[in-house]
């Protein structure tokens, strides 16, 4: 099996038994998410259990492309299991991180890891090629360390006296050698203390942020997984892979001597510039771009002062009203070291700031809060907040219910404080910006419909940027004068021509009010689900670089998506996959996920946004409007999409259209036997039927 190590590691923490699963048993799912969902379905008999239940499993899956020369497609790890962050149900969900963990796992000889059970004391997993040990944390005093300390202590333990940079024989003399340090994925104290917003950190800031998996690991008493490998990944056609890489790089990647843009963009053509979003701009000090394994264009940075190393995106938005850029950068590191989800922390911090300013929250106020708002803007405030949530106390080591409340997540805390009650509850007014499944806001849902519908019809903030340029490019063109990629009509054509099997339906990208609930938008969401589930989350092309729809280096601005993805997959594996084959397998994986959510208790009636998305007009914080392509007066333009809200009854009509397109029961949203059997998943239909959750045809 070229591209595969051939086996998946299965670790039962309860009895500390280690087994292997033959990868070929799940090879039809190709890798990543597909394999993870299939394994979850097989191993978790009762899908309705809570995420903290020891019977919950966590899978960490690689792809056949992990550790290969595929550009922006060799470094992601897909983690799945029942999460603890969303409400009303902790959905079976996913999180994904980059860096070098998945490649190292493959070099060690494993295509993935399945963790089940709960250890009797805190442990960590030590993987050195085939040698796998469940080790007690107490030997290295790991429990209680932050994520960076934990990783470096494990490095020291595995490397022994070997100096940094020299060859190391981690698995003994005949086990091969490496100059690399182990790839470690660790929880911080927040995960140990079961905060529902706890995440996992690898290296400085590669984060598996969503789902509260840090707390799931904490409940399993699993502090870290360390892996170091010295083996080879077989490649079916090495020349074809090298040629594909150079072809992709030559025709579609940035050129230093011909830069089309000088800023980071979330697409393949972007130059290597750290994707930081600090409110006060970028740090103008010595730095380098830093890339995941095999990536052509790094999106992170490392800095001369070592602060904020590798932090990007949401992590760099936390604490926006810090007094200085330096403080905001240090606040990033606080999140990474304690292991906290940055998106939840961003919007949560702004929420309590707002409540404090309104006189509702503070020492002795209606919501008794021990935070010292007198130090707001200074690092001390961020530290106290982070400590309070991490340790469930007042942020200074003293017991206090405030930290305990927040550790459960901001929506649960607001509920406990009575802030969600009545017609003026904080999710009715939009004061608490956690719009879908109790999860924090990301893109403006009422503008970016692919994002909003993908999230509400799925399990988490999709965090998939495939269509984000349709908003960011025209919006920043109007705001800052950056050049447009093309006219709305031209761009829409380039995108939709690639969206098989719906190619050519231009109105899939018509974001006008009139088209918000249409069959066209249902197709857009459908295509996005299928593409992401397979090419992005199973084959694991990076979200920030793929799909490559529009590319200023490409012929006629046409990017490589549709050609490139199967080119790399086939070169590595020897498969004969077409792009459409991948979309079809994405459909199958999406159906399996939906079946699991149905078994967890999902019904179409639950599929609702927070109330404020139906009543409050959309807005941006800087007051500028947003533009997206749409048809206005019969012509394609970049139209204003802010100021609108969803209509509840029309959204119901949209759901019906979407369910019909999936061939699910439109009354309940349940999958049907006919559909599942057509996807060779009759066994899934059997389980749904047993649980009384099979849709009617």
């Amino acid at each position: 099996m070229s591209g595969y190590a051939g086996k998946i590691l299965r670790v039962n923490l309860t009895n500390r038994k280690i087994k292997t699963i033959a990868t070929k048993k799940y090879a039809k799912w190709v890798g990543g998410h597909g394999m993870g969902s299939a394994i979850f379905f097989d191993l978790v008999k009762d899908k309705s259990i809570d995420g903290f239940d020891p019977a919950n499993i966590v899978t960490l899956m690689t792809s056949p492309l992990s550790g290969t020369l595929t550009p922006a497609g060799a470094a992601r790890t897909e983690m799945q299991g029942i999460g603890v962050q969303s409400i009303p149900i902790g959905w079976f969900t996913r999180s994904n991180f980059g860096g070098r963990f998945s490649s190292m796992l493959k070099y060690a000889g494993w295509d993935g890891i399945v963790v089940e059970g709960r250890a009797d004391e805190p442990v960590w997993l030590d993987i050195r090629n085939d040698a796998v040990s469940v080790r007690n944390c107490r030997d290295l005093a790991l429990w209680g360390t932050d994520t960076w300390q934990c990783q470096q202590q494990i490095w020291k333990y595995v490397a022994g006296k070997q100096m940094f940079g020299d060859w190391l024989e981690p698995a003994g003399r005949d086990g091969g050698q490496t100059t690399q340090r182990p790839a470690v994925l660790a929880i911080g104290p927040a995960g140990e203390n079961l905060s529902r917003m706890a995440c996992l950190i690898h290296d400085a800031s590669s984060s598996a942020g969503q789902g509260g998996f840090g707390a799931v690991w904490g409940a399993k008493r699993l502090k870290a997984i360390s892996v170091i490998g010295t083996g080879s990944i077989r490649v079916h056609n090495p020349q074809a892979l090298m040629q594909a890489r150079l072809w992709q790089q030559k025709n579609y990647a940035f050129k230093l001597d011909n830069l089309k843009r000088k800023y980071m963009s979330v697409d393949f053509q972007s130059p290597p510039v750290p994707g930081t979003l600090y409110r006060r701009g970028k740090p103008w000090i010595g730095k380098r771009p830093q890339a995941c394994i095999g990536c052509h264009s790094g999106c992170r940075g490392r800095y001369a002062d070592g602060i904020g190393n590798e932090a990007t995106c949401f992590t760099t938005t936390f604490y926006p009203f810090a007094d200085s850029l330096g403080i905001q950068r240090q606040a990033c590191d606080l999140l990474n070291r304690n292991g906290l989800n940055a998106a939840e922390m961003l919007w949560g911090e702004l929420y309590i700031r707002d409540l404090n300013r309104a006189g509702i929250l503070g020492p002795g106020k209606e919501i008794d809060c021990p935070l010292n708002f007198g130090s707001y803007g200074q690092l001390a405030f961020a530290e106290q907040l982070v400590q309070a949530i991490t340790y469930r106390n007042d942020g200074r080591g003293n017991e206090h219910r405030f930290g305990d409340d927040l550790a459960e997540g901001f929506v649960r805390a607001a509920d406990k404080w009575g802030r969600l009650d009545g017609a003026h509850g904080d999710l009715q007014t939009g004061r608490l910006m956690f719009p879908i499944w109790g999860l924090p806001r990301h893109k403006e849902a009422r503008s970016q419909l692919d994002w909003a519908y993908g999230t509400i019809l799925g399990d988490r903030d999709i965090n998939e940027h495939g269509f984000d340029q349709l908003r960011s490019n025209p919006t920043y063109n109007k705001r800052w004068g950056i050049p447009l990629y093309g006219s709305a009509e031209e761009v829409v054509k380039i995108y939709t021509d690639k969206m098989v099997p719906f190619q050519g339906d231009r109105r899939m990208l018509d974001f006008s009010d009139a088209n918000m609930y249409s069959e066209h938008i249902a197709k857009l969401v459908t295509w996005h689900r299928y593409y992401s589930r397979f090419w992005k989350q199973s084959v694991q092309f990076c979200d920030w670089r793929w799909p490559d729809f529009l590319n200023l280096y490409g012929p006629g601005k046409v990017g490589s998506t549709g050609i490139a993805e199967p080119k790399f997959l086939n070169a590595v594996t020897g498969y004969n996959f077409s792009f459409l084959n991948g979309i079809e397998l994405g459909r199958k994986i999406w159906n399996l996920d939906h079946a699991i959510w149905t078994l967890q208790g999902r019904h179409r009636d639950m599929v609702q946004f927070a109330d404020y998305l139906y009543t409050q007009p959309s807005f941006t914080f800087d007051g500028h409007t947003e533009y997206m392509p749409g048809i206005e007066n019969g012509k394609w333009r970049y139209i204003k999409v802010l100021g609108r809200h969803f209509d509840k009854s029309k959204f119901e009509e949209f759901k019906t259209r979407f369910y019909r397109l999936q061939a699910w029961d439109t009354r309940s949203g349940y999958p049907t036997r006919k559909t599942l059997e057509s996807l060779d998943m009759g066994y899934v239909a059997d389980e749904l039927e047993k649980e009384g959750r099979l849709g009617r045809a």
Partner: protein
Amino acid sequence: MNYPKEREKANGNEKISRRRFLKVTGTIIFVVGAGSYVPAKKSYSKPVTTDAHRDAIPPSNGYLLVDIRKCQGCTSCMLACTLVHEGVENPSLSRIQIIQNPFKSFPDDVTIEQCRQCVDPVCVQACPADALQANAKYGNVRMVDRTKCIGCGDCTEACPYTPSRTVVALDENFNEDFKARKCDLCANTPYHWDVAGGGPDGKQACVEVCPVGAIEFTKEIPAQKGDEGYKVNLRGTPWWGLGYTKG
């Protein structure tokens, strides 16, 4: 399986290798000059015994230069290296090594360690099987003939740099025996992607694949003393234009 060297040690016949000697004494002698032709023995330390007939090694016609401040740490060079040489992906077999520490500050967080194709190649001199030689067919690049290599690791021990630039590992093409590999500027690459092939007059995988241009090929002999000849500044206006400092 043990290295033959280990077996030798077990028999009590251990010789002091050059690398070990240099580590102990801290003495490294460089005799250099652009275009210079260096009789090997002149710079070779006493404790190492070499065959008398290998007394003149012509310089290589090609060298790799790197910019450790420009490197983005993607390790694409390592992946390309093993892909074209071995047909697999395996950083442990790569002839060029990127070593990084995400918790350190720039520029100390990353280094690139490539074979220097030394003008005074102690690895060549240390090989007891004549397997490591300057290959005239490929511009005198220092190359390993794996059919001759006995996997003793003497070349690794002799290399004065950390990590050693020769890589000794099990080789499935040779009955899982230990065999040495080292940078040959892609001269001997069974999986080379280009019909023109590699070597000093061809294309080197790491140079071609590096997305930021942090590796460069030159035919000029770099200054041999210290790192300055090999670790160079390949940044320029476009790089600075992306917000990176000149320093």
